[in-house]
């Protein structure tokens, strides 16, 4: 014990001398500095005694400890005071990690699971600060934010299409394929060059082919996609939005996404993320959102928030085998054994709003904790399982939630905003894009902002744009249209449309298909060319009062979109992507051209040359046919001809 205390004191002296050196000027060769670096140079002198290629000893360190400990005996009375000051001088990285899983049984029998992981870090990436020391926040994303002066970054990878009419609204919407939108800080001088570098670096980090994002599929929306974090100035020159509808999501994208989590996939809710079950689903979407946030209302210290979300909908018939009985093991082939030790909160929420008396389904094991949250304009009740409490895991030390259905009736609240899109027309020359927006509210009307980004090879005729609701013409109050330039940028159409209550609004525009150069076709041109989803953003009137106080106690899944008013909530709906056939040429044409040209040249030139250079002679007229045959016979017989 005494020896333990003595070595403990020695380490305290180390720390004390460390603080002493911090105070002194680093460049001075003070005595303590000399002692310190003698420990460093001694490896040089001791190298001949310890000739090992593998390790680098520092023998002198230990000896110095012993001598210093001898000196320490005289300074005993100073230590208690210095201990307190020295230990508190170690700066703490103020970061916080929370994880949540929300499970919502859907009326079609499918089950919707949504994972939310949030890291909140009190630091400032803006104003040229060099952030170098990371703890819970992943270093790769921090370096990307610093190098490319990013203010907000939102990237999502989705496989499948969200069926709003059957499943309701998702907590975090995402279009099929890959979507990336970024707000840059106003210190960036060349936004396009930075955008190009950023997409290439992100495609390396997420193992996705985001390097196909270039100027032909990037747009600069002027009204949609406002910043979701702190924003002083919104100059839309610093916003870029791009979508790749053709991108496929697979295990290769899930693995680097999981690597960004502090606990990895070893502890906490992330152990459930096994790719063989996650991709065996109707809908799978993973996203990363980075934005600066305010901690309190005065906003004195900015903090940066990293949210990783994963939404998955398991199909009743493929994953559930037709039986309406879901468990964590059936969905994810894993059960939970512990919470992530680095998480300050780790909870599972099950949506039991439609099940107040347990007449529809029952939850096993039962939990006494309940929580109410206002999410998507509705007040929902959730059963809460707190993984940081040992009692949640029970005697078997593992949590396998079971949801057993008792009856299959029940109705779903119709979603208030819903959209569809399709291509009409015939042939390969012209066509028409129809976008239908449904407002299912019985008596309230609201405005929606429609963003359409159409590639340049579908040449839109904006004079044929019509917006009709209930058969009558509906003039949008704001239209922003940026025409395309061939091979440089796509069409951008943004409109603010007022949707009357309980109606369908149809937006139609005619287009003409372009003929591309033969090297611009993909290897499978008859598959078609994708047109990205339309984005419809709206403030939808809510049935209950929304909570506008952005404090910490809100659940993660209800606090993503900032709430400014009490009577409405923000909704973003994505339509289907379109698959359009372009007129495809015959790819054997170059060979045909070569053959034709060469034949024409050979025949034409040859005959012309002949005419020019042949010398003409007089010749006897041709004898008749009979005489010719007779001559041939005579020749054969050896008799002179006629």
């Amino acid at each position, binding site marked *: 014990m005494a020896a333990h205390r003595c070595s403990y004191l020695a380490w305290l002296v180390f720390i004390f001398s460390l603080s002493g050196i911090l105070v002194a000027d680093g460049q001075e060769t003070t005595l303590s500095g000399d002692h310190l670096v003698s420990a460093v140079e001694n490896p040089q002198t001791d190298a001949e005694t310890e000739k090992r290629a593998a390790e680098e000893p520092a023998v002198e360190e*230990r000896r110095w400890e012993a001598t210093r400990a001898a000196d320490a005996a005289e300074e005993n009375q100073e230590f208690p005071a210095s201990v307190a000051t020295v230990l508190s001088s170690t700066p703490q990285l103020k970061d916080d990690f929370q994880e949540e899983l929300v499970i919502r049984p859907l009326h079609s029998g499918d089950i919707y699971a949504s994972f939310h992981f949030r890291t909140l870090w009190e630091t400032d990436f803006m104003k040229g600060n060099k952030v170098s020391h990371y703890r819970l926040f992943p270093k790769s994303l921090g370096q990307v934010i610093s190098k490319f002066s990013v203010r907000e970054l939102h990237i999502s990878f989705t496989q499948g299409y969200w069926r709003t009419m059957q499943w309701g609204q998702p907590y975090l919407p995402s279009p099929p394929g890959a979507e990336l939108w970024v707000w840059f800080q106003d210190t960036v001088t060349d936004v396009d060059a930075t955008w190009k570098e950023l997409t290439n670096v992100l495609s390396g980090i997420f193992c996705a082919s985001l390097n196909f994002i270039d100027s032909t599929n990037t747009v600069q929306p002027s009204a949609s996609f406002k910043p979701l974090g702190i924003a002083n100035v919104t100059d839309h020159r610093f916003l870029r939005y791009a979508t790749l509808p053709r991108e496929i999501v697979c295990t290769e994208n899930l693995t680097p996404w999981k690597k960004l989590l502090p606990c990895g996939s070893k502890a906490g809710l992330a152990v459930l993320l096994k790719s063989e079950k996650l991709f065996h689903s109707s809908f799978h979407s993973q996203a990363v959102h980075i934005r600066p946030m305010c901690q309190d209302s005065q906003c004195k210290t900015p903090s940066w928030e990293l949210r990783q979300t994963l939404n998955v909908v398991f199909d009743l018939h493929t994953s559930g085998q037709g039986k309406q009985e879901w468990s964590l093991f059936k969905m994810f082939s894993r059960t939970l054994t512990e919470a992530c030790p680095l998480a300050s909160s780790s909870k599972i929420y099950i949506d039991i709003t439609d099940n107040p008396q347990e007449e529809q389904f029952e939850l096993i094991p039962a939990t006494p904790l309940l929580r109410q949250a206002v999410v998507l304009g509705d007040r929902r009740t959730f059963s809460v399982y707190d993984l940081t409490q040992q009692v949640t895991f029970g005697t078997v030390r593992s949590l396998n939630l079971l949801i057993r259905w008792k009856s299959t009736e029940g109705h779903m609240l119709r979603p208030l905003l819903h959209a569809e899109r399709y291509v009409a027309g015939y042939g390969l020359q012209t066509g028409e894009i129809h976008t239908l927006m449904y407002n299912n509210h019985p008596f309230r009307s609201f405005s929606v902002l429609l963003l359409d980004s159409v590639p340049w090879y579908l040449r839109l005729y904006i004079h044929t744009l019509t917006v009709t609701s209930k058969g009558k013409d509906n003039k949008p109050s704001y239209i922003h249209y940026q025409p395309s330039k061939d091979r440089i940028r796509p069409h951008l159409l943004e409109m603010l449309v007022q949707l009357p209550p309980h109606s369908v609004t149809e937006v139609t525009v005619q287009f003409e298909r372009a003929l591309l150069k033969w090297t611009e076709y993909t290897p499978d041109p008859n598959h078609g060319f994708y047109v990205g989803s339309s984005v419809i953003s709206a403030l939808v009137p809510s049935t209950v009062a929304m909570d506008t106080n952005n404090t910490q106690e809100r659940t993660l899944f209800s606090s993503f979109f900032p709430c400014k008013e009490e009577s409405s909530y923000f909704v973003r709906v994505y339509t289907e992507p379109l698959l359009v056939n372009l007129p495809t040429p015959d790819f054997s044409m170059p060979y045909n051209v*070569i053959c034709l040209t060469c034949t024409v040249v050979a025949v034409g030139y040859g005959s012309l040359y002949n005419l020019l250079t042949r010398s003409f002679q007089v010749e006897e007229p041709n004898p008749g046919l009979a005489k010719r045959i007779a001559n041939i016979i005579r020749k054969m017989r050896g008799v002179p001809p006629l």
Partner: protein
Amino acid sequence: MATAEVERRRGQLAALSIAAVVIVVGVPLWWRTTETYRAWLPVSQIRELAKLQLQLSADVEVVLARGTVTPEQQKKVPLTQTREEEHAVDEDTTLRYKYETRYRTATVMEEDALNKPTAAEADLSLHTLSESPCGSLVLYVIPQSYPLLPENVSVYVGQRRTALLRVGAQAGVGRTLEQLLAHLEPHIKQALRVMSFSHTDITAALSDRVRFNPGSKESVADSMRAFKSSPGYEITFSLLNPDPKSHQLRWDIEGGVQTYIQPLLTKLSSLANFSIDSQTLYYAVLGVNPRFDNSRGAYTLNADSLAHVINPVEARLGSNAASSNPVLNFLLYVPDAHHSPLYIQDHRKQEVPSNAFHSPRWGGIMVYNVDSFYGPEAAFPVDININMAKVMGVFLAQLRLLLGVPSSPPPPGFLVAPRGSAGIADWELDRLMWSRSVENIATATTTITSLAQLLDQIGNIVINDNIAEQVSSAVNSLQLAVAELEAGNLKFALEFSKEAILASEKAFFDPSLLHLLYFPDDQKFAIYIPLFLPMCVPILLSLLKIASEARQRRRERQTKKD
């Protein structure tokens, strides 16, 4: 018959004129429209540079203190001697070392400084007197009587570019100046080998070009340890915590880096740009399971399994997403509660005192045992503060080795001064700069030479103007660097060599070089033959016919004459 003759003559003229048009107008037009743009490259200068003939010069000043020379000898001093050594490394590379030695006597102020009681103080006061430029050395020769150096030490190497050399007692006053200088010569040579460039260092720097014949196993390990020269380096410190449930670790990495690592990197800033990062990785386990050693009561990792430790961790370390500089990784591993304490054993089954090892050209790992901080009844997780002084000391030593600071032990009789707050002495920095300059020059020369050869051999690569510009600027910088090395201006030589490397790499890896690289010949013929063959065959045939007719007519005329 005359009309037939006229007709034939007309036909021949038509054929000849068509052939003339094709040859005079068609062939140059086709040639000009199908050639690739190739900007001019200074091929002759590149070939000259390929025969690398480097000359390294060092200025040495030998100051003779009072008591080493007699007053009559003092009159002959100051004098200058030049010594040249030539080594032909292989048929393309020759190295010449030039040492310009200047002898002079000590000034009054220097004598005062040399009268200090200890060598360290003398060193300090000598520094305040004069600043020697980069690459040069000052040797102070002191007589036996001075009490500066302890008994068994004959040379004291200072922190800057000075050394104190004690002349032996045999060099009595009766010797002539030449004998004295001849006696000093081997000591000066030895001092130069320690403090300035040595043949082994330089040939090791040229190891890309030249087959390196290692002297011993240690020199093989030494030559492979340091990172290759690069314009920038990333240094990443990672704290690996495989057991966050038991240990909650705190480390003041910012303070540690600021105090211990930053002074060294500031001093090395003329060599490369450094950028430092740190991160904490949880649930990061080593690749090997340590075995419990009953005799020591601890878990051990033996030297053979160390090679397998790094692999699973490296996948999680990540490199800088935003830069392409090589990364030096320093890992601090705190073993989990069930495998504590963990010690590293060397080949002789002895425990390594620093509990750390480094991997050449990769980085270093240190194992930090925390089991002594808490007892068995502690409430998990335990808060632990890591002692940065101990950790940073080990990492600093590993960093010096990985950056190539020469670490061979000094010869017997030499005492090397402690390094100072920056952790590196000026003469060590000079040695590093010599080898880096030579390495940069060799690499840039190889790159440029191979690029020139490639462009020469493959005729249809397009050489744009910007590539030609980069190549010219690289050749220019190389020539300047070689000239500066000859003159002995080490700093400028290093600058120019860095510029040369950047320009040569930019030219070599330019993506526009690949545009017409894979143009198959059979496709070219498949297009030309159906087009040109039907055109050229009739022309050729008619030319042949004209030639044979002319020959026949000449023969007829010959016979007619006879």
